[in-house]
């Protein structure tokens, strides 16, 4: 398969280019000459952009700081495009890429004038080149070249891998190795182990439960032969038979018991049998009779207590009435007291009237002087006025009023006491009536309860006590019957307890069986499959990663071995050093050191070489690899952007000679602002050359090109 060389570039609206330019590059060597900002680099960049689009501007991927914030579309153009025309010995290839400010951009490639294809990956497959390959194998960029010899080991390896077309493999390895897949498996193992431990613990617990239940059953004299479904069924049958018999005996409906032939039925049989048994305990006629007797006993007891209480209260009241004076006596005393009170009040009124007369008499005697004998109104004797006056004064001075008032108060107090006594007597009479009524009512209730009429001659308490005595005797008789009934039921209860124990044993056995078969379940198999799938994926990743590492190492060694002599040859031609003529990359050195050697000595390039020779060393590696026919890509084109940087005239001339040799195998596209180097290249390269001079650049019209 022959390689493609570049015949022409049609360009418009890309970076520095404004109007359309058609640049013919149909020559083994194309020299691009011009100063800074003349459009020279824009033309070189147009080639890679057309082939790879914005991927080449991804500075993080290719470490090209120059590409940061790349302005692809020319600032004065609404749209732009680049069209590349390639040709090989037998084929033609047109690649077109468009960019627009608005609307969808267009891309296609067309092989041998056929259909336009838009799959960029198909173009890269056709050329056997990726963006990374292009930037290291085809386009020698000044930023990349120095990495070969001076950067840290990681960057040097990275640059070397890119140069050798191995960067994608390295990226793949990096991407895989960033994930700690072993941790996932460790987590799976830990969780799986946890489940196994808990399963084991559960098995042990159930085993202990089973042992304890079995021991208890044996201690309860349950035969071991019954520790199964059939044994449980036998016991269920016995229980069912007894319960049916008892139900008939108690005249209650025959219980509806679940089918106990299988374990699930036996499990529901157990609570049903238990509740049926409890029902029978209370449904037996003796129990019912006992219940009625107890109820009657309580009711009669309450009636007796109520009667005794009311009768006792009545007796108390009657005793108090007997102790109290008769009502008539109190009323007679009260009448007398009220008469006395009236008498005293009359006396008081008379005394008040007399006192008034005396007062008036004294007032008279004081006003008028009376002579002769007068009759004393007090003692009715004939006497003098003086005597009457003195008598009146004596009478007025007597404590008559106080005596009368004290007597009145005494009588009133006595009357109050008598009235209270009378009230108390009345209250006692009323209370006695109430208790008498209550006692009569209670006697009636007792009569009703005993279903007989009680006369006043009957003693309700005595009659009640007789009935209560009869009840106690009946209860004693029933109690013996109930005792026998309970003993019979207890036998069934024992069978139910046996059944419960056997069912528990069967449950534990079943759980043990299920637990021991967990590892045979589909769920467990799925879990193991999931773990195996994860293990396999991690194993695949490890294999892939290890294979990639081996392949990168082998590929690197193989490719560098193929150009080993060419690297030294170019280095020798470029530098012409008499002391260390050879340049080698030590692939066995973990640092991938670049060394200069002679027949007996070796030294690190960075330690020995000056800046110009270091550039020559990097150029030697690039040119040897880029010119190698052993590389797989189909671009027969090498682009060198300012390769003579930092070289003196002597070295530039040597570089031109090396490029002449490279031009035998590859089409060269060399850009430089160095006129001296351009001239040296023109002279040294013997193949047909095309010189494109970028004389000036205008923001509105773009670069001005002259072709020689």
């Amino acid at each position, binding site marked *: 398969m022959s390689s493609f060389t570049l015949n022409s570039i049609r360009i418009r609206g890309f970076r520095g280019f404004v109007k359309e330019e058609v640049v013919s590059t149909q020559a083994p060597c194309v020299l691009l000459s011009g100063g800074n900002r003349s459009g020279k680099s824009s033309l070189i960049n147009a080639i890679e952009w057309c082939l790879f689009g914005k991927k080449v501007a991804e500075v993080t*991927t290719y470490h090209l700081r120059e590409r940061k914030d790349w302005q692809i579309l020319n600032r004065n153009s609404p749209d732009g495009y680049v069209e590349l025309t390639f040709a090989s010995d037998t084929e033609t290839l047109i690649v077109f890429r468009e960019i627009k400010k608005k609307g969808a951009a267009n891309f296609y490639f067309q092989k041998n004038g056929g259909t336009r294809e838009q799959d960029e*990956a198909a173009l890269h497959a056709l050329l*056997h080149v*990726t963006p990374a390959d292009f930037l290291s194998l085809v386009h020698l960029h000044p930023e990349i070249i120095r990495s070969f010899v001076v950067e840290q080991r990681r960057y040097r390896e990275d640059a070397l891998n890119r140069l050798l077309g191995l960067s*994608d*493999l390295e*990226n*793949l390895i*990096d*991407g*895989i190795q*960033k*994930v700690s*897949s072993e941790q*996932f498996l460790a*987590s*799976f193992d830990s*969780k*799986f182990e946890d*489940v196994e431990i*808990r*399963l084991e613990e*559960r098995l042990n617990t159930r085993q202990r439960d089973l042992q304890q239940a079995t021991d208890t059953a044996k201690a309860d004299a349950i035969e071991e032969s019954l520790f199964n479904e059939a044994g449980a069924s036998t016991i269920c049958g016995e229980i069912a038979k007894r319960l049916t018999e008892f139900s008939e005996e108690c005249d209650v409906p025959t219980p509806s018991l679940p089918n106990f032939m299988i374990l699930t039925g036996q499990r529901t049989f157990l609570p049903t049998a238990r509740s049926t048994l409890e029902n029978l305990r209370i449904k037996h006629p003796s129990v019912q009779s006992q219940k009625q007797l107890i109820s009657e006993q309580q009711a009669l007891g309450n009636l007796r207590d109520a009667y005794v209480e009311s009768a006792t209260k009545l007796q108390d009241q009657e005793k108090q009435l007997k102790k109290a004076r008769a009502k008539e006596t109190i009323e007679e005393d009260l009448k007398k007291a009220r008469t006395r009170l009236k008498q005293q009040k009359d006396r008081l009124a008379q005394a008040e009237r007399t006192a008034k007369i005396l007062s008036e008499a004294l007032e008279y005697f004081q006003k008028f002087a009376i002579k002769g004998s007068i009759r004393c109104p007090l003692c009715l004797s004939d006497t003098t006025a003086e005597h009457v006056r003195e008598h009146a004064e004596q009478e007025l001075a007597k404590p008559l009023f106080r005596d009368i008032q004290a007597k009145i108060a005494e009588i009133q107090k006595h009357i109050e006491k008598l009235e209270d006594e009378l009230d108390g007597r009345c209250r006692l009479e009323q209370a006695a009536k109430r208790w008498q009524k209550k006692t009569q009512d209670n006697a009636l209730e007792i009569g009703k309860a005993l279903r007989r009429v009680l006369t006043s001659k009957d003693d309700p308490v005595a009659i009640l006590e007789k009935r209560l005595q009869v009840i106690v005797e009946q209860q004693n008789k029933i109690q013996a019957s109930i005792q026998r009934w309970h003993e019979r039921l207890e036998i069934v209860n024992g069978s139910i307890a046996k059944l419960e124990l056997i069912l528990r044993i069967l449950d534990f056995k079943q*759980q043990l069986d*299920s*637990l021991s078969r*967990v590892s045979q*379940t589909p*769920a*467990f198999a*799925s*879990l193991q*499959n*999931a*773990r195996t*799938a*994860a293990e*396999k*994926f991690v*194993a*695949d*990743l490890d*294999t*892939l990663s290890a*294979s*990639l590492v*081996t*392949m990168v190492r*082998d590929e690197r060694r193989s490719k560098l071995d193929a150009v080993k002599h060419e690297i030294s040859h170019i280095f020798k031609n470029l530098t012409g050093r008499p002391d260390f003529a050879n340049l080698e990359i030590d692939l066995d050195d973990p640092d991938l050191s670049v060394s200069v050697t002679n027949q007996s000595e070796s030294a690190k390039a960075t330690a020995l070489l000056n800046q110009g020779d270091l550039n020559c060393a990097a150029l030697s590696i690039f040119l040897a690899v880029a010119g190698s026919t052993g590389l*797989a890509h189909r671009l027969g084109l090498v682009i060198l952007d300012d390769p003579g940087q930092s070289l003196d005239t002597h070295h530039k001339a040597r570089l031109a000679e090396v490029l002449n040799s490279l031009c035998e195998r590859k089409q060269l596209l060399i850009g430089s602002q160095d006129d001296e180097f351009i001239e040296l290249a023109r002279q040294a390269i013997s193949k047909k050359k095309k010189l494109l001079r970028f004389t000036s650049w205008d923001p509105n019209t773009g670069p001005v090109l002259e072709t020689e």
Partner: protein
Amino acid sequence: MNFEKFREHLQVQKLADQQLDTVPQLLQELARACNEGGPTAVTHIVRKRLAQLTAIFEKCLQDVKKEAGIS
């Protein structure tokens, strides 16, 4: 990337039988991701696959726990 070359390389490795198909398939999947998004995309794919496997494992683990009555 030259897959064919890598396939050849894998063939000379001593792969287990069950890896003869899966490893090249995995390579193809990861290489496609790498072409589109670099190492980050590869890491993403690997983590995604591991997360899927973890989810399946967790689901199966819950089923087994339920079966064993230890959930």
